[in-house]
């Protein structure tokens, strides 16, 4: 139950990037119609997941796969919520945007990633204001360890800057940062090291306790470009 889990892919995209540069062609190498209708939060998250899966060599697929998705966030799609409600207020909802409303659920980008990449595993978003992503990482590892039929888990963090939201500090990472986890032997294209639980349930990477996903990624990617 506690064997090491391999990190086989990373995908990272900064929220500082000009949103206009975040195009399907630039990301996927080809047009992808649904991408244009997505909100910024979803685009970021989908881009991060796609890059991680591509890095792990899992981008191409024929049959849907039992691969799960766990994302952690502080703000979620709060910006999209505000954009949507701005369409509701005038004229008592007459112009409420159904397209925007669909993206006022923070898990919708996981559904988009599942469609794009053929992923049928579990998928949910954890909202946690410590923004370390550790709860999600722990759940992703547990899912992989507890069920042999799970091929891989993709987990990470996704947050967008919230202008005017001064009540809390900004998350330590603004953008999307995802990693692919696999049981050893599934995929040998990349090996960024292994993760395991110690007896107390803490997550260990290279003999050190992991405190947050962003630091883990920085450590794992030293000298490499995902």
């Amino acid at each position, binding site marked *: *139950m506690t064997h090491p889990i391999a990190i086989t892919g990373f995908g990272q995209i900064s929220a500082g990037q000009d949103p206009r540069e975040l195009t399907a062609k630039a990301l996927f190498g080809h047009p992808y119609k649904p991408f244009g209708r997505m909100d910024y939060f979803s685009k970021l998250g989908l881009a991060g997941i796609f890059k991680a899966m591509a890095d792990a060599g899992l981008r191409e697929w024929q049959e*849907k796969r039992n691969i*799960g*998705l766990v994302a952690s966030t*502080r*703000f*979620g799609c*709060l910006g999209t*919520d*505000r954009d*949507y*409600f701005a369409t*509701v*207020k005038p*004229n*008592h*909802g*007459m112009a*409420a*945007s*159904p397209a925007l*409303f*669909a993206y*006022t*659920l*923070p*898990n*919708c980008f*996981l*559904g*988009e990633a*599942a*469609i794009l990449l*053929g*992923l*049928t*595993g*579990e*998928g*949910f*978003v*954890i*909202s*946690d*204001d*410590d923004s370390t992503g550790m*709860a999600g990482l722990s*759940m992703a590892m*547990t899912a992989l360890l*507890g069920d042999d039929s799970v091929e891989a888990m993709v987990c990470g963090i996704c947050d967008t800057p*919230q202008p*005017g*939201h*001064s*009540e*809390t500090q900004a998350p330590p990472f603004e953008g999307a940062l995802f990693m692919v986890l696999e049981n050893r032997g599934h995929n040998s294209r990349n090996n960024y090291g292994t993760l395991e639980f110690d007896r107390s*349930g803490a997550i260990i990477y290279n003999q050190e306790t992991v405190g947050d996903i962003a630091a883990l990624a920085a450590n794992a990617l030293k000298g490499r470009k995902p």
Partner: protein
Amino acid sequence: MERVFITDAAVVTSLGATLSETWQNLMAGDSGIRKIDRFDTRNYLSDSAAWIPDLVPEANGSMLATLVTRLVSQLGPLDRDALVFTATTKSCIDLIDSPGRGNDLLCSSMAHYISQRLNLADRGINISAACASSTIAIAKAAQAIALGRAQSALVCSMDLVTEFVFSGFSALRAMSPDPAKPFDRDRRGLTIGEGAGALVLTGETRAKAKGLTPMAEISGWGISGDASHITAPDREGAGLVRAVTKALECPGNLNQTIGAINAHGTGTVYNDAMELTAFKRVFGDRVPPVNSLKGALGHTLGAGGGIEAALGIKMLDHQVLPPTVGLSLPEPGAEGLVSNQAMDFKGDYLLTTNSGFGGINAALVLKRGESIR
């Protein structure tokens, strides 16, 4: 694997301020759906929802804090080391226009509120998976206990009827002009609802040590995605089939028979048809009795699975499914499976399912409570 018991439960719904009151009104065939005066509905497809008229804002200015306070005040003392999981799709979204309340809009806000209010050590996290949020939160809490990572967990689910959500479902044309009619051949969509549910989960070791009598056991769970559409279910129910199959294959359920199914049953054309297809794929020609609570309680979104699991305890205790309110003529293929009357069943196991936007599906198997001393 540690067995996981439900040792306390509570709900607040449009049909009652407690689990017992809600249950009695459900069994009487009542509906909590009523005309809304909370906001102007003139431009929406419906003017009604299953809402709680006396839910006035308190504490942080949101009605959600009031709802949650009413919910957790019904619970007995909790172990301080209990994990805290919440499940909400939109948290205090009634504050979206209130300057300076940004923190309350975060989905994690109610987890922290509950943790502080109950003096629990864990600050808590929120699980968001659309209308499957609370079923997944219960599954994750149960998994933590089953694997020995915790001995106690509190799972609270909650969502409000607000103009934000109401306008969205109206704009998507998923909302029924009339009260929802789950599994009816003339169903036209869902009716929004509000409410909250709480389950206290306890590991067998601690339950025995404390001499607790379980209300029920969580004997299985499964989660799976459709990977087919963001706002519509897979027509063949592939994701739900996988989720249910996984739940049924959990060790405690092997060779056991499901006595009844509390379905998601939203009243939308595609959801209800998808569920029937999935149940037939799993159970063949032996689909057990099926019901939906959403004609009575409305679709309470992220709260739905939690409320339904709490009421599932009552269903198992009394060996009866409450009436599917709103149903008059079952859709083709549902004849004999669903009813607008209460349906008796025999069995110790209840399957309860939810599905949501993003194409996510989740299933729980509840086992009737028994003495463990």
